[in-house]
């Protein structure tokens, strides 16, 4: 792994059009902003605020060999492996979710070495994005030392602190070529508000060389400007805005819908016996065959959607 020089990092940012301009486009147009071989950071965590619609579009577009990073990877990681979109995922934890046990698809791909799961501690993932966001080559930290995890990562370096003589670990900056992040609302310029848990998304947006936002709803710039202290991701980092209702389904989007649990069970069941065949069947039925995003949601099912929405909005109930 190599860290770009500071001037190279700045050049990429400088060449972007960072002005306040309309960036609204379709999922397909946004998918075209990601090139084969790009490093891709995915917002959200586990089954929360996953930019599923964008992943869906990348799989449908047949993108190849993306180096994917995320704080914690769930079912979308299985599908990135199984579709061939990625053969290298950098994360701290990778499985559908604790209640569903160890992912059979992840196991099938990594144990046969068809794909790589590069493991860092969760804080290391966060600090790697943060170093990238701050424009420095590394962050100092105090975990991972003494572990097998450190032994298997590339690029972290232990150092003796010049101030205290203590041992510190320097983890290298992660500046993904593209970050895809799903939010509750943003304006046409990409000023995004995020309700609830923000995970690593704010640092990730600053670290990336390009940001694609999917959003449940596009609101006016006037609405954003009424509470500028609620803007979590600024327009200047954003290159594309796509409005996609239920854009995290079957994962959750804070305050709007909880995970579609029955569908998550269905997924686990489909990939349980024969992970390879199961994942392909799932991809066919839910990724390749649907005419569009509404058709995808329709295949998950209306009753599921209503149930997830009812549970999701309950977070604000007294």
């Amino acid at each position, binding site marked *: 792994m190599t860290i770009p020089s500071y001037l190279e990092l700045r050049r990429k940012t400088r060449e972007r059009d960072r002005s306040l301009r309309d960036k609204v486009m379709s999922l397909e147009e946004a998918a075209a902003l990601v090139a084969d071989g790009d490093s891709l950071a995915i917002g959200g965590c586990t089954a929360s605020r996953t930019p599923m619609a964008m992943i869906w579009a990348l799989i449908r577009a047949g993108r190849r060999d993306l180096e994917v990073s995320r704080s914690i990877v769930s079912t979308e990681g299985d599908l990135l492996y199984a579709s061939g979109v990625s053969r290298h995922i950098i994360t701290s934890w990778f499985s559908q979710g604790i209640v569903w046990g160890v992912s059979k698809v992840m*196991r099938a791909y990594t144990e046969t070495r068809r794909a790589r799961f590069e*493991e860092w501690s969760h804080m290391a993932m966060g600090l790697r994005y943060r170093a990238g966001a701050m424009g420095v080559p590394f962050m100092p930290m105090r*975990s991972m030392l003494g*572990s097998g*995890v450190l032994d298997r990562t590339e690029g972290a370096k232990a150092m003796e602190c010049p101030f205290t003589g203590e041992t510190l670990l320097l983890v290298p900056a992660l500046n993904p070529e593209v970050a895809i992040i799903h939010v509750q609302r943003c304006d046409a310029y990409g000023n995004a508000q995020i309700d609830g848990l923000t*995970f690593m998304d704010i*640092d990730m947006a600053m670290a990336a060389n390009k940001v694609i936002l999917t959003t449940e709803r596009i609101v006016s710039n006037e609405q954003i400007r009424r509470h500028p202290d609620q803007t979590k991701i600024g327009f200047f980092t954003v290159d594309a805005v796509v409005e996609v209702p239920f854009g995290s389904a079957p994962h959750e989007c804070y305050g709007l819908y*909880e995970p579609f649990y029955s569908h998550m069970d269905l997924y686990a069941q489909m990939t349980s016996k024969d992970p390879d065949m199961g994942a392909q069947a799932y991809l066919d039925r839910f990724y390749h065959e649907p005419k569009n995003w509404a058709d995808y949601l329709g295949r998950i099912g209306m009753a599921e959607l209503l149930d997830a929405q009812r549970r999701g909005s309950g*977070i604000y109930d007294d």
Partner: protein
Amino acid sequence: MTTERARISLSVAPAYTGSELLAVMSARLLKDGQTVFAGVGIPLLAAILAQKTHAPGLTILFEGGVIGPFVEAGKLPPSTNEQRCSRRANMLVSITEVLLLLQRGYVDVGFMGGAQIDRFGNLNSSFIGDAENPKIRLPGTGGGNDIASLADMIVAMKHEKRRFVEKVDFITSPGFIDGGDTRAQAGLPAGGMFRVVTDLGILGFAAESRAMTVLALHPGVSAADIKANTGFDLPVPDDVEVTPAPTLGELAILRELDPEQLYTA
């Protein structure tokens, strides 16, 4: 998850599952006023149980960025990164910030489950077998490595020979590494393994050698039982204590919290 109810219920009353036993015994180790970084499942159940019994001022943190939540009975979160764990919290922060609380020293106790542990309290949740060519690729560290590196640890896990091994296949979350002062030597001067709670007993670590030792056995468990279920030589003092059995009150709270036995079957 297979139930241990049959075996345990022979020796003590009231009847409880192995997981319920784990939750109760772990909860008792938490002190009022502490800040505990809790994983999902048994750790979360135990932390809430402690809040509802002897430690009302216990502050719970979740890895998703949640500080001081109120988890509702019957609505246990399937992970520590979903909105269910954030309901009526005091504060939500980013994942990086909540993990940095460990580094800043704000967390008294890290509390998690374990898949494989060794004599020096090192935990493995990454690989079964050789990491280069594993028999099973496990989900990995998540925040486990950070928690174990930066806080005093309580681990709750089933006591089985294949889980309690001489040396873990892979150190995902460091305990005392090779014992003695090797943990501090590796750059981890703070934190370390405090207790391992199993369905057979409560384990600690010797002051100098940092090797695992038995502190107490659960009701109906013998020294021979615990040794037989451990993959390395585990010292049991002659005068080892016996833990008081879970009370009806403790079990009632657990069953209200997890009525569908999501984590306590």
